[in-house]
């Protein structure tokens, strides 16, 4: 196997700490002892690959994928699009991106969600796609509703879409959330606030992108995702093409 170099170590200061007293569930679920930091090995530098063969025609269309095209979901129609890049600024092509979200009323289609807002019979709430040769991806969906959750006295999640990305190696694995520009609940959310750097949190807030909005059809929001890159210098063991 060609050695592409080790993964660039994670800058943990950019990520939320495991323990955050304002997000109460972290208190009993955060490791107390330090992580063991080591250079990556082939176990982290390889990973599963998924081909376009797994995708159905409507997999990235959450407005229609639950009803197989029979009836559209209720809600404000939104295109979510962007690119997957790595820390070196290179496109990450052919990588699987999965999303999941609440419906327009803020209710998830999940056996454990019992919120008052009704399920939409035409909305499932998940989608998936594979990035193209330039790392681009798109989903057509509806704007998810904000919803309350038990934490402190009166807590509401801002509108958000959960995103899972694979990259090309198991050590690049990332799950995050996309927020929507202008949502006043972002600044009140203890989960958003687990990210201690404002500039890093801002990177999870998708701007309204009228250049991709279609008149009389849908609005658009742009969300780029950056995964870990790999260190390639002349001083690594074996370089691709050298």
């Amino acid at each position: 196997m060609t050695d592409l170099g080790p993964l660039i170590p994670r800058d943990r200061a950019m990520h939320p700490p495991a323990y955050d007293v304002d997000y109460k569930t972290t208190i009993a679920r955060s490791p107390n002892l330090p992580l063991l930091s080591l250079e990556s090995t082939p176990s982290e530098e390889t990973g599963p690959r998924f081909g376009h063969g797994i995708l159905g025609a409507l997999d990235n269309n959450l407005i229609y994928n639950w009803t197989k095209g029979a009836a559209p979901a209720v809600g404000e129609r939104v295109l979510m699009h962007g690119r997957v890049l790595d820390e070196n600024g290179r496109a990450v092509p052919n990588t699987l991106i999965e999303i999941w979200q609440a419906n327009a009323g803020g209710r998830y289609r999940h056996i454990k969600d019992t919120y008052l807002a009704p399920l939409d019979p035409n909305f499932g709430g998940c989608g998936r796609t594979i990035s193209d040769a330039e790392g681009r991806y798109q989903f057509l969906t509806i704007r998810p509703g904000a919803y309350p959750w038990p934490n402190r006295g009166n807590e509401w999640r801002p509108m958000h879409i959960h995103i899972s990305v694979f990259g090309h190696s198991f050590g690049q694995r990332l799950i995050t959330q996309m927020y929507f520009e202008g949502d006043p609940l972002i600044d009140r959310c203890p989960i958003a606030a687990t990210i201690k750097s404002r500039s890093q949190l801002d990177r999870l807030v998708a701007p309204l992108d009228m250049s991709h909005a279609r008149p009389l059809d849908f609005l658009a929001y742009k969300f780029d995702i950056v995964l870990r890159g790999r260190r390639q210098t002349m001083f690594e063991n074996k370089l691709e093409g050298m």
Partner: protein
Amino acid sequence: MVQKLDTLPETPSQTAGPYVHIGTIPTFAGLAGIYPEDLGLSPIADGAKGEIITITGSVFDGTGWALRDAMLESWQADAQGRWPGSDGADPKVGGFCRFAADKDSGEFVLRTVKPGATKGRGGTTQSPHIALWIVARGINIGLQTRLYFDDEDNAADPVLGKIELRPRVDTLIAKKTGPGAYRFDIRLQGAGETVFFDM
């Protein structure tokens, strides 16, 4: 002003939340049929070469309660220690699996082929192991760990060798409970806290 770096910072993580199953294993969440098949149902296909094993365990929080909402992913080599997709690898081993803690008992089960030893960095040999990634509500960034086997020789493994607090090595070793059966519990904090990696 110094020169500007042209690298990009990694996108920050956020918790996968309690409903991670909707996006990753929709059948578990109650969305059967949205895809023909959930991704990563099994790391092996029929006919995979090697010993078929079953690993059972739970993810415990700091109070000793088994999480009911954890979602785990595994990645491993085939029985010969070859990574799926590489030259000569067993085509029946996909190597990737997704599995969740049971919503009532909190127990997970991984059925797979026992991996072989693999090459590490710098000419080292890694003992047979399965890489694991754990997400759940209250976990702000996915936790990386590894599962080794108590019936393998782990003495020279280069990663286990880096664990300075030697009693903690035991937290990464699955215990054989019968023919082809192992137990592996993950403890997020407190006594016997599992070693988690930053690799």
